[in-house]
């Protein structure tokens, strides 16, 4: 990016880091050097000096573990786990530890930028915040402003699309864009992530729930990789008791993951055929009458229909063996073991949608769990409780000109607020949108790397008149934006207080460890300032085109008009009248009192009776709640498992999980099925510029079966071209026996195209650019594992 202060001068140039001179390296706690390729490396070291300890919530992934930042002389030198939070139980994963490198990433967005070149060529001008907001409103000679667009669209607010990645400040952005500015066209990570698992479980057992891994004695983990996709407390609890220590662990995965390495048994299931496996398990359970009959009678609605359905369709293990690649005997054994265990769990898993049948798979899993009766009880899937925090309503205006969202093509159940990324994007590209979509407001979201078919995403972004990005790093997507607003990273901001439920509920707060660096601002401040800039001009635009507003305000005097504007929510700034800090205090004091607030400020965590309940048991473990205070059973008689979901049939969705032959796993000769996934050291594209994590995995590789590689003369490190119907990538080969001969695997998030992310640029391959943009039929969520590819050595 052509801004005044170059990357190399990053450390010296920063006020916050002015203690780092060229001469004092080694004497200070923040060290930098360059490796032999001239890449900057930044490391910290703790010292014995007095330090502040600031509780924070990790922002390196969605899990939100609690930590304590050690701050020495204004420098965050170490992130330690916070022992007070029952969810993350005194731990930080490698990404959590490497948060410092994200904070001090030399490639961070430091100033507001406005595009002066063509989209994608990386030419930007450093501007003041006000100039940046002004560019959003009024445009420049290179792009149109929001006001002109809304004027041309006659105040149809739906001409604006917006998207946002997961996080504590996400709600505020939705308030600004959706509730206040008034567009329904919102897409986020849900439709490229775990939509069907949330939907399937909610539709079946009423919630996603939490697996009580501390007390379970048998677990089937299928298509989840808890050793590498870390979720607390599941990951911690699971692997302390696996390997013959109380938790029998059955892992199903097409490739041998680190989770498989911890299993008692691993089944190399064919991609997309888990449903057949669960149906076969269910078949065994029904045909051998292994289920909890009393429980079923009481809570499983329509289970007899399902029994008939499964038996009638002969979903036998022998049938499933052909589909899944798991021997029938093993399916029998697993079903019998599961049902004879005291606390068996078919682990829900939470991941992207891999196959088109994922919604049904989740339903089948949830029902299977229900058949064991191990629901809403210790050692099973529990519902738990949440500590309630008061919420202030947003006074949302009504815009007569705004139109409904349209991204419903090919979708059975429209999920509402979050929509479908693929359908939304593709309909706009194909001109199927009933009204123009002309602007994208984006925050902390990188669809270029996250949404299948990068080429289409690029075209989509290029089609917009105005793209705005709020983020901390110049991601691939950022490079197609017109105005870039630098956000403070999670360690530089206090975030809205959050409440975590389930077994051991608690309130948590992320406090800013240091002030926002450079000219970055916290998201809430950005929302506020943007609202301040937009509110008057946009209001005038409504007055100009909105007939309802015109009718309501006809003949009003100036002060009456001002009152109308306030009372009907047209004042966009209203949700940000108070700062995050003030609001947090207000909400917590209101709900739990002053004492609770003090505890929360000091420890980062609060729950009632924490001072009494919280105890250190040994150097590694803590008690958060005494055993009798944990929320193992909360549903009681309200518990309900919807087995035969008749309403679904009306929408064209199977009311009971049913296998369709078109779902069989098929790979044409000479091709490979592409599967993607995670390692514990990376979250998504957002963490791939982190130099401490890069140290652990410098680039992604393509897993290819050793024997298959040998046949093709491919050796470790050879560069391969991987080609699908939508694109191709170049990526190095990693021959391994941990994957089937007709499959390949690549780690998600790599292959960045933004040259401004120096560590990530050009390293490895971007899976999104070769995954075909297919959707599953229920919610329109992206399907990640249904792409076949060809490979060749280059």
């Amino acid at each position: 990016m052509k801004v005044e202060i170059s990357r190399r001068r990053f450390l010296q140039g920063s006020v916050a880091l002015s203690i780092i001179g060229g001469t004092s390296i080694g004497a200070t706690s923040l060290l930098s050097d360059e490796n032999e390729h001239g890449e900057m490396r930044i490391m910290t070291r703790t010292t014995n000096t007095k330090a502040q300890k600031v509780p924070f919530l990790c922002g390196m992934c969605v899990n939100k573990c609690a930590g304590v930042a050690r701050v020495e002389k204004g420098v965050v030198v170490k992130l330690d786990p916070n022992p007070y939070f029952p969810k993350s139980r005194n731990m930080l994963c490698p990404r959590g530890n490497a948060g410092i490198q994200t904070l001090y990433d030399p490639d961070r967005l430091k100033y507001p930028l406005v595009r002066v070149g063509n989209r994608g060529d990386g030419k930007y001008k450093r501007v003041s915040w006000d100039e940046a907001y002004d560019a959003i409103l009024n445009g420049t000679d290179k792009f149109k402003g929001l006001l002109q667009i809304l004027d041309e669209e006659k105040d149809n607010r739906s001409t604006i699309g917006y998207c946002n990645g997961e996080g504590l400040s996400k709600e505020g952005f939705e308030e600004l864009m959706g509730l206040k500015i008034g567009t329904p066209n919102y897409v986020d990570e849900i439709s490229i992530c775990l939509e069907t698992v949330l939907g399937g479980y909610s539709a079946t057992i009423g919630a996603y729930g939490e697996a009580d891994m501390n007390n379970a004695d048998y677990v089937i983990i299928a298509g989840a990789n808890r050793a590498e996709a870390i979720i607390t407390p599941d990951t911690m609890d699971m692997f302390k008791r696996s390997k013959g220590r109380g938790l029998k662990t059955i892992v199903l995965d097409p490739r041998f993951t680190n989770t498989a390495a911890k299993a008692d048994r691993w089944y190399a299931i064919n991609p997309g055929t888990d449903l057949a496996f669960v149906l076969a398990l269910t078949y065994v359970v029904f045909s051998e009458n292994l289920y909890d009959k009393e429980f079923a009678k009481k809570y499983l609605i329509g289970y007899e229909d399902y029994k008939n359905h499964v038996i009638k369709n002969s979903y036998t293990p022998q049938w499933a063996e052909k589909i899944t690649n798991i021997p029938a005997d093993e399916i029998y054994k697993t079903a019998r073991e599961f049902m004879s265990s005291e606390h068996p769990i078919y682990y829900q898993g939470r991941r992207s949608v891999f196959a088109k049948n994922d919604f049904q798979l989740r339903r089948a899993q949830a029902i299977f769990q229900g058949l064991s009766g191990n629901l809403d009880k210790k050692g099973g899937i529990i519902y738990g409780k949440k500590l309630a925090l008061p919420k202030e309503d947003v006074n949302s205006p009504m815009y007569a000109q705004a139109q409904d969202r349209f991204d419903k093509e090919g979708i059975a159940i429209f999920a509402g607020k979050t929509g479908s990324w693929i359908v939304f994007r593709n309909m706009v590209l194909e001109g199927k949108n009933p009204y123009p979509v002309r602007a994208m407001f984006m925050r902390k979201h990188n669809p270029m790397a996250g949404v299948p078919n990068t080429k289409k995403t690029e075209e989509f972004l290029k089609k917009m008149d105005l793209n705005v990005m709020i983020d901390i790093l110049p991601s691939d997507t950022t490079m197609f934006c017109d105005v870039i607003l630098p956000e403070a990273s999670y360690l530089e901001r206090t975030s809205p207080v959050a409440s975590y439920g389930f077994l051991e509920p608690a309130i948590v707060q992320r406090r800013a460890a240091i002030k926002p660096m450079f000219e970055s601002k916290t998201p809430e401040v950005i929302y506020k300032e943007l609202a301040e800039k937009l509110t008057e001009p946009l209001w005038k635009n409504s007055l100009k085109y909105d007939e309802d507003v015109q009718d309501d305000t006809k003949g009003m005097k100036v002060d009456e008009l001002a009152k109308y504007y306030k009372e009907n929510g047209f004042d966009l700034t209203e949700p940000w009248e108070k700062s995050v800090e003030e609001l947090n205090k207000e909400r917590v004091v209101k709900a739990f009192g002053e004492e609770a607030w003090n505890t929360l400020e000091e420890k980062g965590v609060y729950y009632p009776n924490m001072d009494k309940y919280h105890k250190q048991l040994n150097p590694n473990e803590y008690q958060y709640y005494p055993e009798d205070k944990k929320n193992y059973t909360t549903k009681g008689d309200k518990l309900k498992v919807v087995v035969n979901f008749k309403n679904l049939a009306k929408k064209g969705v199977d009311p009971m999980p049913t296998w369709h032959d078109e779902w069989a796993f098929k790979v044409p000769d000479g091709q490979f099925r592409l599967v993607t996934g995670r390692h514990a050291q990376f979250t998504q594209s957002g963490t791939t510029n982190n130099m401490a994590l890069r140290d652990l995995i410098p680039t992604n590789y393509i897993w290819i079966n050793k024997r298959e590689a040998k046949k093709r003369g491919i050796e470790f490190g050879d560069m391969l071209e991987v080609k699908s119907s939508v694109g191709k990538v170049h990526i190095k080969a990693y021959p391994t026996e941990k994957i089937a001969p007709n499959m390949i695997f690549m780690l998600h998030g790599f292959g960045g195209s933004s040259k401004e992310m120096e560590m990530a640029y050009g390293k490895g391959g971007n899976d999104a650019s070769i995954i075909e943009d297919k959707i599953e039929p229920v919610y329109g969520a992206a399907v990640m594992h249904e792409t076949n590819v060809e490979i060749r050595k280059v």
Partner: protein
Amino acid sequence: MANYGMALDYKNCINCKACEVACKEENGVQLGADKHRIWVGVKEIEGLWPNLSIASSTFEPSQCQQCENAPCQEVCPTKATHYTKDGVVMVDADKCILCSYCMEACPYDARYVKEDTMTVDKCTFCSDTRLLRGETTTACQATCPTKVRTFGDLDDPNSEISILLAHREHRTLKTHLGTKPKLFYLI
């Protein structure tokens, strides 16, 4: 005066390498693939897909073994490598002449060259960082998601580590070399 050691419930390890990053941040270990004080190792898996040997892919978290009879200390010509009063093997950077003999002698590949001082560096059990500040855990122990490590005083019969070692079977690495490692792998 203590005699520090570490017990590793290594079957808990999920090879996430949080310990490696935490160690680097805490102790200012430079980035670079060969600059680690601590690591998790795994063997290349045995067997052919789909019949793979799960047992062959056990994760082995490790670091300097803080040997009671440390070959690196024996071979140091300037006593730069020494035992602290708490039984920790440390390198005095002032005395280290970078002859690299200790790197030759260490059976565990636990030593590397620290580039800013150009001296040999290694795991210190956080003696000069966390322990100095009165903390009772090492960075690797504190951060571990599955709580593999228990650090403590082997001479204190009431310490968690002593109790663990008294009750659980354990082994050490390359025991036959007579180095008397103080990293104990719980079975």
